[in-house]
């Protein structure tokens, strides 16, 4: 029976959840249950806290009482140290959830004579475990024994026995150890604790400190192998396993307005994708923050929550400045739809920034997150780190389906597109604002460098900051090339004048044509009246001729009658024919 149970357990490898933020995700559920785990690292890297949080979480969340065997700090010191993290050890100790045991040894007081063993330690651990029915045990820092007790050989044997004994007891154990030169631990404790080894690291790069955690080994379980940044703050330990999230985030096809109607039009008429990452980059004073503010205002009007990280300006300053372009952010702050978070990038390390950001996002649950500007983090040569941090942040925000809006300051001299190349791959929609310098003035131009998943405009637009918001204008594209600002205005006036002139010319031509027509018609009238006059004259003549002719005929008939010829009919017939002709 027992053997079978053990086999079944091995298959799934039961784990003791730590409830340390992020750690359970990278370990696939926690530390190996009923086995010892070695936590090693240099001084001040948070070993004790890690172990303590494991115990406290176990005691409070999983009803697994824990024993803390401390070789360095006294019970009182421990209680005081972790009280700042909100752990009430006193109460937990009273409720028999936690047992603190300080083991005090001082080399100076100890003389060795003959062989000994550590049965006293065993008894104490055993007594503590039995007293509260502990399921978790912490030994912090076991290596103190090596410096305080003589005869290392015995010590090693005894430690080996201790771990065997702990395993038999089935308690989940954390053993902390100082990091050694070229080895995981100073005294080679990893020889004894081989199930799970976690390495904590605290390093300083470019004057900013970075804490990292790595799972060196985890027997019988898959685990994340990267170095994960972690943070110790007022809520305890948190590991940021964001890089392990991968690319399987959900992509929304919902669109949200940019807050600038004509920019929406440029982005195929609807604006950004929800949950996408937007970058606005440009040189100083090109209105990046203003574009962000327009987006913020639009979002707040829709009733969405916005978290605004600002690294250069104070919230008040932003509110004031945006007021000048007709964007009033203050009501949204009051309605707590908009939350500002202003910190200097140099205040603490990147990882710290990242984790505070993530914490704030988790607390505030915004729909949109603004980072203004992201390259404030780049100090010296840490661009790679900044990039890694941003990848993590973007991954995290995408998981949460939060739209991320970054601004980035580029220096005017460089090729602007390549300056931001280190974040380019993260960005879904990239707007570039740039100075268009022409004719002794600078004007702002905006274009969509890329926008994944939508047919966007390829036009460069001039945009101006008016006292009623941001307006996008068409830049002048004509025979003179691309013109902006007053050059555009003057060209437009010139064009207008030309057009007016042309219109006038047309008018004149039309007028003269009219007059020609009038003249022609007048002539027509004269001609007609002349004609009519002539016609009347002619008719008159014809009439007279006719009358004469008739008279002549009648005279002829009369003559004929008088001569008594029979040609009366004949002559009348020829007369008729003549007239017809």
């Amino acid at each position, binding site marked *: 029976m027992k053997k079978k149970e053990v086999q079944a357990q091995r298959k799934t490898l039961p784990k003791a959840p730590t409830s340390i933020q992020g750690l359970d995700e990278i370990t696939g559920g926690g530390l190996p249950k009923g086995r010892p785990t070695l936590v090693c690292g240099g001084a001040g890297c948070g070993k004790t806290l890690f172990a303590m949080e494991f115990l406290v979480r176990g005691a409070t969340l999983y009803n697994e009482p824990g024993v803390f065997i401390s070789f360095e700090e006294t019970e009182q010191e421990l209680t005081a140290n972790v009280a700042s993290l909100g752990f009430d050890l006193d109460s937990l100790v009273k409720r028999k959830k936690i047992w603190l*045991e300080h*083991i*005090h*040894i001082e080399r100076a*007081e*100890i*003389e*060795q*004579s*003959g*062989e*000994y*063993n*550590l*049965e*006293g*330690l*065993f*008894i*104490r651990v*055993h*007594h503590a475990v039995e007293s509260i029915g502990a399921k978790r045990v912490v030994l912090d820092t076991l290596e103190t*024994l090596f410096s305080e*007790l*003589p005869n290392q050989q015995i010590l090693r044997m005894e430690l080996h026995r201790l771990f065997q004994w702990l395993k038999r007891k089935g308690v989940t154990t954390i053993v902390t150890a100082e990091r050694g030169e070229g080895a995981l631990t100073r005294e080679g404790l990893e020889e004894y604790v081989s199930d799970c080894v976690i390495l904590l690291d605290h390093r300083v790069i470019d004057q900013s400190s970075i804490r990292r955690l790595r799972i060196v080994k985890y027997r019988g379980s898959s685990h994340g192998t990267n170095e994960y940044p972690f943070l110790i703050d007022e809520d305890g330990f948190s590991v940021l396993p964001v890089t392990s999230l991968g690319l399987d985030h959900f992509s929304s096809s919902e669109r949200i307005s940019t807050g600038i109607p004509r920019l929406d039009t440029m982005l195929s008429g609807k604006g950004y994708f929800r949950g996408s990452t937007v970058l606005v980059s440009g040189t100083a004073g090109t209105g990046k923050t203003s574009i962000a503010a327009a987006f913020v205002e639009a979002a707040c009007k829709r009733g969405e929550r916005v978290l605004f990280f600002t690294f250069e300006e104070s919230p008040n300053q932003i509110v004031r400045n945006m007021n000048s372009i007709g964007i009033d952010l203050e009501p949204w702050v009051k309605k707590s739809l908009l939350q500002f978070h202003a910190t200097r990038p140099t205040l603490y390390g990147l990882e710290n920034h990242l984790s505070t950001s993530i914490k704030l996002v988790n607390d505030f649950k915004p729909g949109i997150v603004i980072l203004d500007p992201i390259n404030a983090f780049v100090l010296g040569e840490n661009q790679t780190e900044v990039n890694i941090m941003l990848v993590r942040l973007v991954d995290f925000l995408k998981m949460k389906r939060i739209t991320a809006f970054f601004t980035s300051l580029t220096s005017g001299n460089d090729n602007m597109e390549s300056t931001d190349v280190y974040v380019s791959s993260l960005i879904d929609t990239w707007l570039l604002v740039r100075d268009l310098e022409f004719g002794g003035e600078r004007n702002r131009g905006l274009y969509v460098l890329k926008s994944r998943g939508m047919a966007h405009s390829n036009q460069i637009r001039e945009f101006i900051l008016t006292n009623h918001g941001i307006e996008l204008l068409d830049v002048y594209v004509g025979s003179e090339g691309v013109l902006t600002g007053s050059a555009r205005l003057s060209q437009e006036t010139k064009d207008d004048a030309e057009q007016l002139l042309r219109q006038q010319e047309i008018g004149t031509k039309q007028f003269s044509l009219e007059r020609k027509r009038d003249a022609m018609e007048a002539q027509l009238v004269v001609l007609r009246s002349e004609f009519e006059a002539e016609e009347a004259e002619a008719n008159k003549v014809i009439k007279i001729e006719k009358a004469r002719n008739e008279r002549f005929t009648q005279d002829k008939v009369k003559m004929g009658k008088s001569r008594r010829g029979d040609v009366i009919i004949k002559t009348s017939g020829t007369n008729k024919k003549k007239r017809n002709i």
Partner: protein
Amino acid sequence: MKIKHEKSETSRQKEQPVKARRDKWVLCLYVAGQTSKAVTAFKNIKLICEEQLKDNYQIKVIDLLKNPHIAHDDQILAVPTLVRKFPLPVRNIIGDLSNTESVLVGLNIR
């Protein structure tokens, strides 16, 4: 096992009446059960005390298995541990006390 235990009892009984004497040495031997090391340690310290201190000593044998909390109270880690409670300062000697020389150094008899 039993024999050892009686021994410790008798030694304690023997010593108790004379406890009133100020300069009497008080030694505590912490053991975890009647192991061979414990027995050896008791034999050794008994021998040393007889030689060096005559009757002027008292040995308490404390079995941590029976009173585990004492290990905590008296900060015992290794067994066997011999603690010189009096005269002050307190001195600890760990091991089965087979090295007489170091026991004497430890107890500051010499």
